[in-house]
């Protein structure tokens, strides 16, 4: 086959399965490319390398591009234009991912493989990999774009290394691609560790409180990794192989005790990353204190690697049905209910912790932990709609959180603070950022018409049909808490009184606005037309052997009550139209007054009077539930650390003996006695 950029473009477009209307666009691209291909340099060098690129295994090509990104960032990361280059490269990675066509097509195995000491590592992409890789690269793409311009300039001025940031991001992306493509336990662990450490790098870049948080993260992450390694060892001891095929067989042959052990080991490892209770304490600070754009990436996808592990092993290999048969001894709970309850508590506790936060970044980061609970809850319900909701929430939440964090960091970029008590009234100064944040919080709270509503609806729906009332209530209570806290977020930043020092604040720079607005549009679109995202999820479900969700373009068809977002959004818009008609159509024209022209009980307001309700926002609620914040988990963490300290003290004491020979004598006696 003769290869030229034109045919490549054709193939790419064919791979995209675009509607016919895009033909014209393709034609323009094709024509402009024809000029390039006619040049001499192209026929000499470009042609060959292109053919090589086309001939490659698509997964290899993806890996190669990702590694190339890493390499280029390592070499050129210091340049001013590195940001743009990174955006292009992530875009190329996205194209490479699409060209694998593993979502609708058959899984593709990579030709890259490593063999060490009889153990082989290899990779393969299937629908699940595609789904997570798509989110990853997408997150990296928008993050890179967000960071490319003004943000990076500021970052450099603060004395930070642009190269380190780019490298950390590229490494995160690369590691994640390796992780989601893993085809055996070793490559899984390799990817896992790579992402863990890359995340650590990203968190620790700035130092200060971020470094402390990163260290805490590290303690959790490495413990989780060791649990994971223990689980891998257990599987290996039974199956004698690291291959997934053998793993599945091994798990099938395991006794209940073994499965329990495996569940605790693997589940513990994944739970740490996902931030499930009681391993959630590291996440908020670590994600919030990372450098802005890095925080966006981390918040969007990094914690999901824990979910990926749970999907592959606990949902895919052990299976929800097996979980249901695993009873907790001496109780009537099954392991599935246990996990579901952990998920539910993970929704509630961090969400209400978020309610207490005074820092926008922390608030969002705490919500990130809570939203992970929805995903797991949906997967644990295990029916078609529930698992689809869990999976879909991964995507919806990723775009939501990315948009939210971007908006918050845009505010930080302009005002220099994320303290909710130091902001206010910015809507007049940064209206577009406000819009992005508004879209984001509606989606995060799971209200129509945004993306978050769809996935949460699916989770609720499955909880009802599967008859899990308490979990349902827990999930809704979590949502209500989310509504409360996101309102606090948007109110304290954008609404209320504009502070004197923020009078001159400008709208976020364009380089940051474009990805933000793009994501907002995506949030709305994914809520308006959830069909495409549902089609991906359905493919993933099919591949995992789960029941496949009955989806249509607007949502879900089900005789027992479906969801059609196109209609819902339509009537909501119509409702708004009616509202606007009622409001604007009748009566006198409203007159804009100055913000300070307010009811103040007769007091005269000036700009320097602080006339804003922000601190202790939900005073009444806190008065009631405040005593419930006992910090039991912090206490647990502290007592664990104290135990470690005590054990270490004891161990060190052994090396502080006054007479070292005493230990020798004891050892000799013990050994000789043991010998007999």
């Amino acid at each position: 086959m003769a290869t030229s950029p034109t045919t490549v473009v054709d193939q790419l477009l064919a791979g995209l399965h675009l509607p016919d209307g895009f033909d014209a666009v393709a034609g323009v691209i094709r024509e402009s490319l024809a000029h390039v291909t006619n040049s001499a340099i192209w026929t000499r060098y470009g042609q060959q390398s292109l053919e090589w690129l086309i001939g490659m295994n698509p997964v290899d090509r993806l890996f190669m591009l990702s590694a190339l990104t890493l390499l280029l960032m390592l070499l050129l990361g210091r340049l001013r234009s590195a940001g743009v280059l990174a955006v292009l490269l992530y875009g190329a990675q996205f194209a490479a991912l699409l060209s694998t066509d593993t979502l609708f097509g058959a899984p593709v195995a990579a030709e890259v493989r490593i063999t060490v000491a009889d153990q082989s590592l290899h990779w393969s992409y299937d629908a699940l990999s595609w789904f997570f890789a798509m989110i990853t690269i997408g997150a990296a793409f928008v993050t890179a774009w967000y960071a490319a311009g003004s943000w990076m300039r500021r970052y450099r001025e603060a004395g930070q290394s642009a190269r380190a940031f780019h490298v950390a991001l590229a490494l995160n992306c690369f590691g994640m691609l390796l992780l989601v493509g893993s085809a055996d336990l070793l490559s899984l662990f390799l990817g896992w560790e790579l992402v863990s450490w890359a995340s650590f790098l990203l968190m620790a870049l700035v130092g200060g409180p971020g470094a402390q948080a990163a260290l805490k993260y590290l303690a959790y992450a490495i413990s989780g990794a060791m649990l994971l390694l223990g689980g891998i060892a257990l599987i290996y001891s039974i199956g004698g192989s690291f291959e997934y095929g053998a793993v599945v067989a091994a798990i099938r042959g395991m006794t209940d005790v073994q499965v329990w052990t495996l569940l605790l080991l693997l589940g513990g490892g994944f739970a740490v990353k996902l931030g499930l209770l009681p391993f959630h304490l590291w996440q908020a600070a670590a994600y919030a204190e990372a450098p802005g754009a890095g925080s966006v990436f981390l918040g969007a996808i990094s914690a999901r690697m824990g979910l990926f592990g749970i999907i592959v092993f606990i949902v895919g290999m052990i299976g929800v049905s097996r979980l249901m048969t695993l009873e907790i001894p001496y109780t009537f709970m099954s392991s599935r209910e246990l996990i579901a309850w952990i998920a539910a508590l993970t929704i509630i506790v961090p969400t209400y912790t978020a309610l207490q936060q005074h820092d926008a970044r922390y608030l969002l980061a705490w919500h990130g932990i809570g939203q992970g609970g929805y995903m797991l809850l949906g997967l644990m319900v295990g029916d078609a709609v529930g698992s689809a909701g869990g999976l879909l929430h991964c995507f919806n939440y990723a775009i939501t959180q990315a948009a939210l964090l971007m908006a918050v960091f845009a505010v930080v970029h302009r005002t220099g603070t994320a303290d909710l008590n130091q902001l206010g009234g910015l809507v007049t100064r940064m209206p577009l950022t406000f819009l992005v944040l508004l879209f984001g919080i509606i989606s995060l709270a799971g209200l129509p018409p945004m993306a978050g509503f769809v996935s949460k609806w699916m989770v609720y729906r499955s909880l009802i049909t599967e008859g899990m009332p308490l979990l349902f209530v827990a999930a809704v209570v979590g949502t209500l808490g989310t509504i409360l806290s996101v309102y606090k977020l948007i109110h304290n930043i954008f609404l209320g009184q504009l502070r004197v020092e923020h009078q001159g604040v400008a709208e976020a720079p364009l380089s940051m606005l474009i990805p933000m607005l793009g994501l907002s549009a995506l949030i709305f679109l994914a809520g308006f037309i959830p069909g495409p995202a549902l089609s991906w999820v359905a493919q993933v479900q099919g591949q995992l052997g789960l029941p496949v969700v009955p989806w249509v373009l607007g949502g879900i068809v089900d005789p027992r009550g479906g969801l059609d977002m196109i209609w819902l959004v339509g009537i909501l818009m119509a409702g708004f139209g009616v509202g606007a008609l009622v409001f604007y159509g009748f009566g006198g024209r409203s007159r804009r007054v100055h913000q300070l022209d307010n009811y103040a009980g007769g007091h005269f307001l000036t700009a320097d009077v602080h006339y804003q309700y922000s601190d202790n926002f939900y005073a009444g609620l806190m008065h009631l539930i405040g005593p419930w914040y006992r910090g039991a988990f912090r206490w647990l963490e502290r007592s664990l650390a104290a135990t470690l300290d005590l054990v270490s003290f004891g161990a060190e004491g052994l090396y502080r003996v006054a007479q070292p020979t005493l230990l020798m004598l004891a050892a000799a006696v013990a050994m000789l006695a043991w010998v007999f």
Partner: protein
Amino acid sequence: MDWLSAMRLDALAAVDFHWLGLVLELMLMPLIAFVAGLGLVLMLRKIAARLQRRVGPPLLQPLWDIIKLHAKETQTSHGLIHEIGIVMAIGGYVAAVTLLPVPGMNGLAQQGGLIALLYMTMIPSLGLALGVGQCANPNGSIGISRALTAMLAYDVPMVIVIFGVAFHFGSLNLVHMIAAQQAGGVATWGMVQMPLLALAGLFALQGMLGKQPFEIYVAPAEIATGPMVEMGGKFLGGLFVMQCFQLYTGGALYVTLFLGGGEHWLTFLFKVFVVTAIPMTIAMVFPRYRTEDMVRLFWKWPTMIGLLGIAFVMN
């Protein structure tokens, strides 16, 4: 596989919509709701007046109030969001009522269902909150904080009720529920089948409609520290409109869930008025709770009753 077929756009064409009827329904339903809502407001004020041994307002007073507010000369706006908040408040309820099936008009009840309806009713809260927030009056914000806390309170028994009902009928679809209830007369009504849930639902309705003893956040006596502090003119008028829809939505929802919906308009409206009259009557004999006491109350009794109800429903 082609994305077009993957997205099932082709399926769209196969659906047989009664376009004209639907559009008519969509236009009629909010209108009826508004009129019924006006009636409900009137009833509310009449009941209050009778209990306080007054005569009460004339028939068209609620409408005149709205018209008066809209017609006011001083319309103070604090910005676009302030206005959009009102639009969202009305719009959310308009959308909600189109999701409620009424006799002869199922509207879009097929497309949404119970949960969607519940979440639609949260949009006005959000809109109102945004609008008030834009006013930059801390008193308004305090009111919103109370209102949202109240929402947290009454939604817990509310979702328990919703779960129980949906589980009982095995569907989220409101049309199915009505059909199931009407199948066997009063004996199959939700209220008869699930008396505990109906009771809990009544509690929740009381909170949802913002009536005493759960009305501190909108109480006239607390106007200076409530959401309404910066609302005047057609802003307040818009909220009056919203209130009409709100009362109707609450009543109609309860009727749909527990009282077998409406066989025809007469019985339906009758049920709605009766149902709505209950909280109003109760309201007049109670003082009001502080917000945290309200939360405490809602998370105790109605929640327990609701859970008990679910326990009965699920066995």
